[in-house]
């Protein structure tokens, strides 16, 4: 189903208010892999993520998804194939069920099975369905946000520092959930983080972004060689100083 799905950026640049936010970025991410994007705040990570589902328009270069430039595709249709989970989960008014079925309702495709499958994959139980989404903990809301995206059966998942507001135990559980989803659903994932250790744990590929430039990109094994597996050593090795 997803063998052809991958993301290619070819010399992508974006300027905002006279500042270069993305500077000539190129990479190619194979289908069914997780790319961890790391970099300090303000390095352009969130902007990079939002150019993929075309929430932000790029100034130059091309982004290919399914081997076709996203500029040639309908932005609404493309977003239905790409789930985005933000740092702070933005819950809509109403219950968890109303949140999860939102995207399905937009396409008149609501079915209880789809909701239950998404709920299960996000590791939430049915007792959550009728709870008010805004009353949940941040960790639970983040899972609702995942379920909301999964309900549309996306092929790509964009995660914008999804564990920034979670404690370490919940973060580890979240990482396991996402890795499991990648395996069972064959998702291609771009995961933005500022946590080097997390990038090493989750990334099949790693991109290092500094001041809008993709300084390094490659398989995690090359970016984090075995000798520098230790966090501090990796930093000393100069791969990720910020």
């Amino acid at each position, binding site marked *: 189903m997803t063998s052809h799905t991958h993301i290619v950026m070819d010399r992508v640049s974006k300027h905002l208010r006279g500042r270069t936010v993305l500077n000539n970025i190129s990479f190619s991410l194979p289908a069914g892999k997780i790319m961890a994007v790391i970099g300090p705040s303000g390095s352009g990570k969130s902007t990079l993520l939002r150019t993929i589902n075309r929430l932000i328009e790029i100034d130059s270069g091309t982004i290919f998804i399914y081997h076709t430039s996203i500029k040639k595709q309908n932005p609404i249709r493309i977003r239905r194939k790409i789930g985005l989970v933000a740092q*702070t989960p933005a819950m*809509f008014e109403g219950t968890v069920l109303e949140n999860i079925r939102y995207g399905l309702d937009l396409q008149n495709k609501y079915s209880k099975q789809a909701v239950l499958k998404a709920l299960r994959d996000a590791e939430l139980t049915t007792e959550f369905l009728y709870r008010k989404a805004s009353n949940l903990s941040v960790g639970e809301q983040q899972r609702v946000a995942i379920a909301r995206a999964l309900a549309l059966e996306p092929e790509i998942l964009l995660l914008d520092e999804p564990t920034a507001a979670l404690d370490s135990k919940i973060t580890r559980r979240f990482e396991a959930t996402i890795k499991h989803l990648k395996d069972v659903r064959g998702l291609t994932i771009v995961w933005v983080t500022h946590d080097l250790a997390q990038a090493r744990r989750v990334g099949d590929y790693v991109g290092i972004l500094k001041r809008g430039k993709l300084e390094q990109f490659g398989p995690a094994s090359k970016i984090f060689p075995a000798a520098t597996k230790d966090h501090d050593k990796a930093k000393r090795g100069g791969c990720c100083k910020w």
Partner: protein
Amino acid sequence: MVEYLFEPIDGLFKLALTLILLAVIILLSRYRKLDIEEELIVATVRGFMQLMFLALILTFIFESHLVLVLVVYGVMILMAGYTSSKRAKKLKAPLELTTTSILVGAGITLIIMILTGIIPLRMEFLIPLGGMVIGNSMINCSLALDRLGSDIQSNRNKIEAALSLGATSEQASLPQVRAAVRASLIPTIDNLKTLGIILIPGTMTGLLIAGADPIWAASYQLIIFFMILCAGSITIITATYLAQQKLFSKKHQLIDIN
């Protein structure tokens, strides 16, 4: 035609008498060190000048050709659009947006009222009623755009979440538009609800003072309220629709308004 209660000269004399009362208040303020004398004097002089100037213009307009009403409406709508546009600074070309919205809202309502004969084709009806409708549409427009601008800004993450799930810009910003429409219509709706209980509104008061039949005065007041409500609603719907077009790109992207 109702008989004038005041002759013009007699009216000015009575005005002078009320000014004596005002002078007493100013003296009292000075004595009690309330520090409002200057503002009271400035406000009184300004109000006096403005209203007298308006009276002079109206005297001229009432005796002019009916076509002049279009010029007056044009000036009123432009002024209303300009005032309202200050509330919509976050949008591109706000003057164009507010003026168009008020023109559509007040324009449609006034045309229907004039064509159906509810507003007689006489200057003394056309000018004040037109002013009332345009002025209220301006307030509705300002309230709606002010609310919409701040709600969209504070709910960027929710809007972005909806867009990411494949919502169009209209669908994604529907909760904010709905809140803006409700918030801007609430003052008019509340006024309508409490009509006659809390206060006797201006037009009815004026008609009653002028000796009109209370039923007729009440009916006319209601017509004016419905006119204001209709014009305001059309203005708000137009303004929020146009604002949505400015806040989002054609590719359903929320434009950076910071």
